[in-house]
């Protein structure tokens, strides 16, 4: 049977040892995520949400079980191969933004392109486009300490998506923001999702979690419930002004439960350049 899942976790275990004590952060987790899904991961503190996200983001490895990303078993990859996959397929958004303080907004957004060895001309083009898309053009040369929280998170989102990853992982993206700004950021993420990017958000905020079509509740390292709300309105990509350029150049399976309208992507430039390491 061909595996059509974007992410497929089976029987994942992750245990931490702290001195004598043993923390079973993930136990026997099975999870399939299709392309374009919008998932909220909730649950009490210490239930393993971040651990799960780190594992999906290839920052961590399971002790047991297999993880297939786009059909490829990634548990057997070495560190450099994981880094490459991370750079190409995964975007991270953090609660504390994690912008490099000495770099301007533009330079922060440019980082993934720099790390991947993109030529300068291409970088300039993509960064200025991203700045425009996220309404940051007039903040391009500001350093993070000169930006508001919402602007910082927008810079972080621009940075996470500049290489058009398949999956966007956000660990409490609104945790450091006030309600209104948090709402803006969430809308921005949902827009990206509406354009086909798979979005996984860890949150403590019930209201925020309820916006997701699929809600996973974790408890004590295991998945306690996994609900897909069919009644949640699909976000309308045509409603907002986001250009189609940030749509990942992937095919979305036709049997996808989420009927997000996706515009043609044939006009996209080749998204990857040879990596110079």
């Amino acid at each position, binding site marked *: 049977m061909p595996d059509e899942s974007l992410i497929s976790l089976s029987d994942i275990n992750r245990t931490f040892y702290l001195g004598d004590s043993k923390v079973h952060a993930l136990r026997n987790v099975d999870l399939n995520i299709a392309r374009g899904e919008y998932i909220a991961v909730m649950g009490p503190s210490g239930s393993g949400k971040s651990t799960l996200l780190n594992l999906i*983001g290839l920052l961590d490895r399971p002790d047991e079980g297999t993880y297939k990303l786009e059909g490829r078993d990634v548990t057997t990859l070495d560190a*450099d191969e994981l880094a490459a996959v*991370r750079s190409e397929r995964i975007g*991270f958004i953090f609660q504390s933004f994690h912008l490099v303080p000495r770099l301007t907004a533009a330079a922060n957004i440019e980082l*993934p392109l*720099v790390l991947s060895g993109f030529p300068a001309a291409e970088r300039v083009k993509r960064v200025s486009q991203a700045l425009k898309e996220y309404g940051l053009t007039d903040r391009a040369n500001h350093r993070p300490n000169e930006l508001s929280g919402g602007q910082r998170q927008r810079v972080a989102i621009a940075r996470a998506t500049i290489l058009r990853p398949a999956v966007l992982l956000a660990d409490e993206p609104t945790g450091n923001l006030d309600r209104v700004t948090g709402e803006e950021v969430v809308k921005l993420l949902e827009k990206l999702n509406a354009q086909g990017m798979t979005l996984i958000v860890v949150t403590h905020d019930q209201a925020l979690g309820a916006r997701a079509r699929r809600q996973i509740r974790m408890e004590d390292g295991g998945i306690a419930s996994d609900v897909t709300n069919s009644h949640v309105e699909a976000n309308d990509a045509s409603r907002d002004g986001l250009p189609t350029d940030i749509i990942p150049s992937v095919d979305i399976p036709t049997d996808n439960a989420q009927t997000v309208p996706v515009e043609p992507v044939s006009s996209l430039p080749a998204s990857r350049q040879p990596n110079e*390491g």
Partner: protein
Amino acid sequence: MKITDTFRFATNAATAAPLRAGLLVLAMSIGVAAVVMLTALGDGARRYVVEQFSAIGTNLVIVLPGRSETRGFNPANLVTSTPRDLTIEDANALLRLPEVKRVAPILVATTEINAAGKLREAMLLGTNDDYINVRQMKVGLGRFLSKDEVGHGSAEVVLGAVIRREIFGTENPLGKTVRVGDRRLRVVGVLSEGGQGMGMTTDELLIVPVATAQAMLNSNTLFRILVEARSREQIAEVKAHVLKTITQRHDGEEDVTVITQDAILETFDKILNVLTLGVAGIAAISLAVAGILVMNVMLVSVTQRTGEIGLLKALGATSSAVRQLFMVEAILLSLSGAVVGVGLGYVGAAVLRHLYPSFPAYPPLWAVLAGLATALISGLVFGVMPARRAARLDPIQALSKR
């Protein structure tokens, strides 16, 4: 990551902490400046000595009375221990050797010169007409001593430039009579100013014919005999023949020491080169200290930038990319320190030359290159540990650190 981007990123990271970077550059530059300046001093000393010895002439063989103790045991020593004096006849005998171009006997003493109502101490040098050629000196006014065929010694004197100025001022001294010791001598010439050699200036000399000097001092011994070989290749031959001739003349007793200018030069050159190297080595220790500072500062930087490192890894930077970033930063800091240090070293050497104009304190190129290389290597060596620590950081823990 492109190498140019790596450099840009590292430069940016280094300059973002100006105090940290400044301290490192300072430490490294002091080390390099020390190497450059101390080798300039050492090499300057070497050149100074070599120049001094070269200034006494070319292809010289010098005869000294008395045996050098380094020549080992000789049964002749048992018979008599008082060496014979060197005489003018010895000098004349040497002139007959075919490989010998010129011979200049030398006699020195301190004396007084009295003229135009002024009295002054001066160094008396008795020699012959060839001395000026052997020593490659120049006459500024008049002529040098005339050839003394008979060996009676004429009553003439050549003055050093300073003596002339102090006694006669701007007046023309030629033909004037001066009183030297108990003799009245006629001034026939004045030496050009600035003559150097064997650490003594010729500006305060009174040069008289050797026979005149011997008569004044009531002695017939010589202080030295300078022998000039016809060519460089013949120096060894001249040395052997000179020794043989004098030994023959002294009843088979080898009671003189013959040294060559080359041998002296070589010895000094060697000794002072070793000295310079040693000094450079000591200065290089300060570079190692600077290197340790590089390591510490970089370690602090890694700790401070833990979150950034975690982020880079989350963005897909490989461990080797992270390691490279920190290595390049350490190397850049060390190198800029080294470049600043070379600049400081050159300035310091220039100041030294300004303060002591006769002292050629130029930093040797090898020392400058060695200083730069040592700084670079210490940056590399001491940059490795912090860079590896950065590369090994666990991204999750690094990211969770705030």
